[in-house]
Structures are given as C-alpha cells and as structure tokens.
C-alpha cells in the first residue's frame, strides 16, 4: 500500500506571542490630579436612543441623567412626598404660589453644551413634548395631574396642577429631563423616535456626549465648565455586553470598573473574592409575584374556573413557603415583600398583615372546598376535574424559571398539578397582556413611589394595561385613591396604604414572592461612592478617583 513519506517537521508558530507583545506596548498618557478618573461600566443593556422623553430603558436613564438635568431630584432618603427632601439641579430654588401652583427659578449659570443659556422656555417646551400624544412619551401618564407649564420670565417657570396631592413636586421634577428647545423645536412631533439628536445629544448636564459605537460602547466626557461643579471622573464609558454574566466576567478580568447589579449568588461570590472590588448593597426596585388570572384565559367576560374562588387562592398562597424560596434563589439578596412592593417603597412595612405559610391549614381548606385525591394519583380533584393549572413564565429570566420549578414542586406536594408554559419574552408579554394564561410569574421594576405602580397593576384602572390578572376590589381601590390623594401627611398616608395592602393580601390575587436587594460592584480606586437606590448613577458626578490611586486607564490621553 502506498504511503506518503514525511517531508518536514511542523515548526511551532509564535505569531500569537509576538502579537501580544505588540499590544503590550500600549500608549500611556500623563493626566494627573483630581480630575483624571475614567470609569468603565459594563452593562447588559444598551440605550435605544438618548432622548429621555421617548425612552424609559434603565440604561438610557443612566446615560441620559449624565447629559440632561432635571429641575430637581430625589434626595438619598428616597422620600417622594412633599418637596423637603429634593435636591436642586437646574432650578436653584422654588416656591408654592398657591397650593396648586409651583414656581421654579432656574439657575442663571446653567448652559447648554453649545453655549446657549437654559431658559424657562426650554422647560415649557419639554413639558409640551412629554405630554404630546404624537410624541407618545412613556412618561405622559405620569404628568396627567399637571394642567399647564408656563413661563413668567426667562428664568422663571410656573407649574399648575389639577388638584392638590402629596406627590405633586415629585411629579413635576422626577420624570422630565429638560431638553434644548432651540435644537429640537424643528423635529416633527411624530418623528421624535427617529431624530438624529437621539444618537448625538447636546445637554446641560455634567457630561458631554462623545461617541456611541452600537453594540459595543458609549463614551461621555466631563464638562469642565459644568455650573454645579466639575465632575471628578473625566471620562465615562459604558461597555455593552450580551448578558449580565459577561458583564461580571469583564469586571473580574479588569476590563471594566463597575456593574450595576450582581444578580446571581455565584456572581456575588466571584466579586466578593476579588480584592480589587468593593461591594455596594442598595435597595432593589423589583418585586416578583405569582399572579392568578381572575378571568378565563383569553376571555375576560368569563370568570376563571379556579381562581375566581377566593378561598382556593388563599389556600394556594398559604401552601407556598416564600421565605424558603427566597433563600433558595437569592440567598440573602432579597426579601419576602409584605405586598406588591419593591424595597424602594416608603410604605414597606414588615408588620403588614399577610396570609401565613401554613400547609396544614391550606390542605384543610382545599379538602373543605371539595378538592380531595379521590383516585389516589397524588393530585386533588373535584367532580372529576383535577386541581391543575398552567404557569406562564418567560424563558429569558433564569430567576423566574427557577421560581416556577420550585413553585411547581411545592404545589405538587399539596396535590396541585402545575404545568409550566415556558415561552420567550415577547410571547410572555403578548399572552400576559391578552390574559391568555392561568397564572404567571411576573416581575415589575417600580418607580420610587407606590402611587403609580400599585394603581396601574392592581386596580381596575390597570385592566387592559398591567393588571394582567384583572384583580379588583372596590374597598382596596377606595383606600388606594385616598392614600394617593390625601394631603393629611406622610404618616396618615402610610397607614392608609397599609390598610389597602392588607385588604389586597387577604384577597390573595397573587403570591408576592420576592423583592430584590441589589449589589453593585466597583473597583476600589473609586471613592465617595453614594448610590441612590432608584437610579444607581444619579450621584455619579460626585464620585472620584483620588490622584494617588490613578491607574494607566485613568491617565491615558488620546
């Protein structure tokens, strides 16, 4: 048999090594002092466009808050009631002319980054944009109590409200980032989402837009003339990663300096083990729940065959060991919420009355309702129908899938057959909105106030919106309405909220599973780090990297 004789031995290639050597000779610059820091933030999301009026993505907010200013912003206390805890930004001061008329005086030093002064006309223009139906701002409904915004002179702007309520000031300042009317006035209202400005914005904030490489990174540079003080970090770079795990990997490898949240226990352990990193816990804005559908799947005119029964829902809730689920999935990084609330809410009260975890009582209730295992197959049944339902869960959320499986097992022990409908996120949304589900595992990220999210998701006003399960109870809604509108004071409002939540808890429209505790990780050279829980980069302009801790990344010049 013919064979080939070897002609020459293969020699090992050294190209890779020489390549690495070449790259090792990176340019090093010479920035020194207190204003040299560079912060690289790894994040799993990417802005769609940097026009805060038409995007409510969290990462858009994080970036836009460095470019555009609000009139004033929440304080570290997170108190949304009244105006005492708010910090001035564009407005240097404000006063109430009448109980429903709020007057802001703009800081005369404020400038757009093209040199023009920020004026009251910009504020009025911004309000006009945020409330224009053609623009379709996601924040439009949050401004519905503001009747008008007018200018008194070039630095004075007047907000008039439809009625008096505790969070008037919050509504006036929290949702709107003031926009430059001289640059945006010509953009047709119906085409704001396609405006070129959204990919190269000019703002009035502490940072200027530099570059945006889609799918890759976004860069801002400090505005050394910023009227509220030059930011210490001179450069901010967001690196976009496909998912959170890749972001954490970049952080651990030193390719990034910060991540907003370490979601899994594994990523927290990895970050904690790294001596270069500092960990910053803060309250999370998310809560998750198992929601029951009160209507027949896909037909809102008929009641659900199982979940119209209040006693059955209460039994199912009592059969769930929520504390064990939280420990299993989150470790110590979440709490069992006392109702539909994130830890951000100032109404969080562990004393709120809830249904207890009591499997024996749950089993007795089910038996009393006629649900018994008549055929010995381990599943309770009644009139020939098994006690079974399907649980909708999105495949894109590892946390929710894990919860769904654990819930399935806890219900199985009680003789309840749960089948999982795992679908991709778009399908999950579509089916949830259309009411095509028995039960679902959902998560909401909330505003800092209960006044928007709770009415949206748990009252009749949320039908066809985010009250997917179509829960309603007039007594609950009366109390919510009183809590939202009462001006009797924060304590009284908190008592009213608690009474409302207790009614809801007794109705068991959902099993409230978790409220997250966030953990951010940052390189230790970054100091003066303060994180406001509702917006982790809100105070970024005060963070710094001391001159004696600068690395090559901070010093480098281009």
């Amino acid at each position, binding site marked *: *048999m*013919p*064979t*080939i*004789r*070897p*002609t020459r031995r*293969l020699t090992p290639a050294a190209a*890779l090594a020489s*390549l690495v050597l*070449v*790259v090792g000779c*990176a*340019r090093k610059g010479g920035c020194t002092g207190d204003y040299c820091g*560079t912060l*690289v933030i790894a994040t799993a*999301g990417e802005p*769609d466009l940097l026009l805060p009026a038409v*995007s*409510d993505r969290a990462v858009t907010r994080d970036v836009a808050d460095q470019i555009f200013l609000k009139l004033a912003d929440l304080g570290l206390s997170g108190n949304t009631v009244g105006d005492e805890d708010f910090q001035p930004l564009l407005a240097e001061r404000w006063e109430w002319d009448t109980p429903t008329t709020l007057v802001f005086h703009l800081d005369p030093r404020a400038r757009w980054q093209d040199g023009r002064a920020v004026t009251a006309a910009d504020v009025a223009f911004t309000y006009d944009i945020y409330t224009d*139906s*053609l623009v*379709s*701002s996601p924040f*439009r*409904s949050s401004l519905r109590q503001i009747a008008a915004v007018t200018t008194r002179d070039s630095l004075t702007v007047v907000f008039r409200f439809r009625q008096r309520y505790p969070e008037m000031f919050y509504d006036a300042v929290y949702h709107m980032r003031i926009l430059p009317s001289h640059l945006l006035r010509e953009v047709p209202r119906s085409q704001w*989402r*396609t405006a070129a400005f*959204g990919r190269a914005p000019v703002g009035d904030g502490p940072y200027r837009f530099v*570059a945006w*490489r*889609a*799918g*890759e*990174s976004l*860069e801002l540079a400090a505005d050394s003339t910023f009227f509220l003080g030059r930011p210490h970090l001179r450069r901010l*770079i967001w*690196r*976009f*990663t*496909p998912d959170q795990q*890749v972001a954490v*990997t*970049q952080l651990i*490898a030193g*390719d990034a300096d910060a991540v907003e949240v370490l979601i899994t226990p594994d990523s927290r352990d990895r970050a904690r083990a790294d001596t270069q990193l500092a960990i910053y816990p803060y309250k999370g804005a998310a809560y998750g729940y198992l929601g029951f559908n009160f209507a027949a799947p896909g037909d809102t005119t008929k009641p659900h065959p199982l979940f119209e029964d209040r006693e059955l829902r209460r039994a199912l809730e009592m059969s769930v060991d929520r504390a064990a689920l939280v420990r299993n999935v989150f470790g110590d990084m979440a709490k069992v919420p006392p109702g539909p609330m994130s830890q951000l809410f100032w109404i969080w009260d562990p004393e709120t009355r809830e249904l207890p975890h009591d499997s024996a009582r749950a089993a007795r209730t089910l038996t009393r309702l006629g649900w018994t295992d008549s055929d010995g197959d381990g599943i309770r049944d009644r009139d020939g129908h098994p006690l079974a339902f399907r649980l909708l869960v999105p495949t894109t959320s590892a946390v929710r899938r894990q919860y769904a499986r654990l819930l399935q097992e806890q219900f199985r022990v009680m003789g309840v057959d749960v089948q999982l409908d795992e679908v*991709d*996120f*778009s*399908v*999950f949304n*579509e*089916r949830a909105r259309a009411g095509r589900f028995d039960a679902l595992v959902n*998560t*909401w*990220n909330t505003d800092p106030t209960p006044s928007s999210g709770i009415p949206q998701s748990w009252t009749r006003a949320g039908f066809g*919106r985010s009250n997917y399960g179509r829960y309603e109870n007039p007594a609950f809604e009366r109390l919510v309405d009183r809590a939202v509108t009462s001006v009797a004071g924060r304590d009284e409002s908190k008592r009213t909220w608690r009474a409302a939540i207790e009614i809801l808890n007794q109705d068991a429209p959902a099993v409230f599973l978790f409220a997250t505790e966030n953990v951010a990780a940052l390189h230790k050279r970054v100091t003066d780090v303060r994180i406001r829980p509702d917006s982790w980069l809100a105070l970024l302009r005060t963070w710094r990297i001391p001159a004696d801790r600068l690395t090559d*990344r901070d010093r*480098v010049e*281009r």
Partner: protein
Amino acid sequence: MAAWLVRRLAASIAIIWAVVTLTFVIVHLAHGSPCGQSDGRPVSPEVCAALTRQFGLDQPIWVQYYKYLGGLLHGDLGWSFALQRPVADALAEALPNTFTLALTALIVDFGLGLALGIYQAARERRFADIALGNVALFVNSMPTFWLGLVLLLVFAQRLGWFPVGGPRNPILCPRVDSLACVADFAWHLTLPALTLGLVGAAGTARYQRAAMLEVVRQDFVRTARAKGVRERRVLLVHALRNALLPLITLFGLTFPFLLTGAVLVETVFAWPGMGRLAVTAILQRDYPIVTAAALVASVMVVLGNLLADALYGVADPRIRVRGA
C-alpha cells in the same frame, strides 16, 4: 460561461427572494409583539398603539410585505424598532465585525485543518496520526460556546493574556486608526476567532486526511514517484490539488456558516456582529432586522456556493464550465 453565469444569478436571486419572503412571513406570523415590557416596566397601550401605527404594523401583512419589497428594491432595508435607527446602519456596523471574525476563523479552520490533514496522511497509522486524530475528534465534538468559555476562562480570566470581550479597548482605541490599534483589534479577535476556527479545523483535518489518503493511492501519484519527483512536490502539488475538491465543497458551506453561525461565539465574547444582532432582534421581534439578517445570510450562502463552483474549476480543469 455567460449563459451559466446568468442561470446561476437568476437562481440565486430566486433563492434570496424566497428566503426573504419566508422569513418575512414567518416572523410576522410568530407569536409575540415588538411592544412589550420595557426593563420590567409596563408599556402603556397608547404608546404601543402609537408605535404600531408609526411602524406600519397595523396594516395587513401583504401591505407590509409590498412596502418592504418596494423599499428593498430601492436599497431601503427599513427601520429597526428596537435600535431606533435604519437597519442599513446597524448592518453596516455589525457586518464588518462578523466578516473579520469569520474570515479569521476561516483562515484558522482551513489553514490548520489542511496542514493537520496532510501531516496526518503523511504519517498514516503512526502514533502522530492516531494521536492527532483523537485530539481532532475531541475538539470537533466540543460545542463551540463551551470551547469559547474554556478559552475565556483560561486565557482571559486566569492568565490574563487576552481581553475577555469586545472588539477593542474603548479607552486606548476607540477607532482602529493606528498600528497599535490594529494590534489591539487583532488581540481582541484572537480568542473568538480561535474558538470558531479550531472546531472547524478539527473537522477539516479529518476531511483532508481522508481525501489525501484516497488520492495518494492512485496511479498518477505512483507514476510521479516512479519518475523521481521529490516527495514534497508529489504531496503538495500532485496529490493536494486533487484532494482539494471535497474541501472546496466544505469551504462553500463553511464560510456562510461562519458568518451566520457565530451567534454563540459573539455572545460569549461580546463581539458586536451579525449573530448577536440577529438573536437580539428575534427576541425583541424586531422584524426589519430579522429579515435583513436572513437576507444577508442567504446572500452569503449563494456567494459561498458560487465561489466554490469557481474554485472547482481552478482545482480541476476537467470540470471547468463551458458555455451553454
């Protein structure tokens, strides 16, 4: 030749049209909506309705298709709902990244695969052949994303020799405008290209070894040796050229696969290419991007096959196409 080319081009256009049409129909019929929750926050029905109107999604599917085809014929690929920018712009940024990654991976795949295949064939049934064969089988059996994760863990995280992701250092090299930044880009490219190329190289080596062994047993090789031609020339000129035909077929299939199949590698290494763009678009029901990605993929498959046909002729003059 001209008639053949015309026939092939006509068939290619028909294939691309069919792929685009099927993709358009399937993605529009799929459950889900581009308007869902945003970062865990509810999107109001009013905003959804406005977006639906703005992007023409409230019109019948045939109207949308007609408009899409009309736009396509004028070079307009549409507007991305999720990225809020022209699809053409998004592709223009993603395609070069994917091309670079795929071409580099192709060089690794066929360069290493050919060399290993020839080397193994030259040492048939000896230790080196058996050992390399087993290693190649092992590597070929690895899922690409798993190999990527291993390389990432070892060479980026543990040893720190390579960056963990992205196509460049955003601080030093926001643009590839200097030799140092070219090197930086190559440095970032190494691990993803190796991941994508190594698995393919293992398969290519097995193909090449088998093809070489088949050829070296033929009479013309024996004749060449009998005439006193040097072994190196016998191997690399006479045998290799005849053993390339199966590889050309493989090449025609591999290149478009590398272009479109780099999804997992692009995800692991945060490489902003077509694969990542397409997957994100599918999850967000960003129809224009999904359809455009399918269009690009089908064009690549067609071009890959055309290139393979052309290369057949170069490798073997007997199958050069004559006119008509």
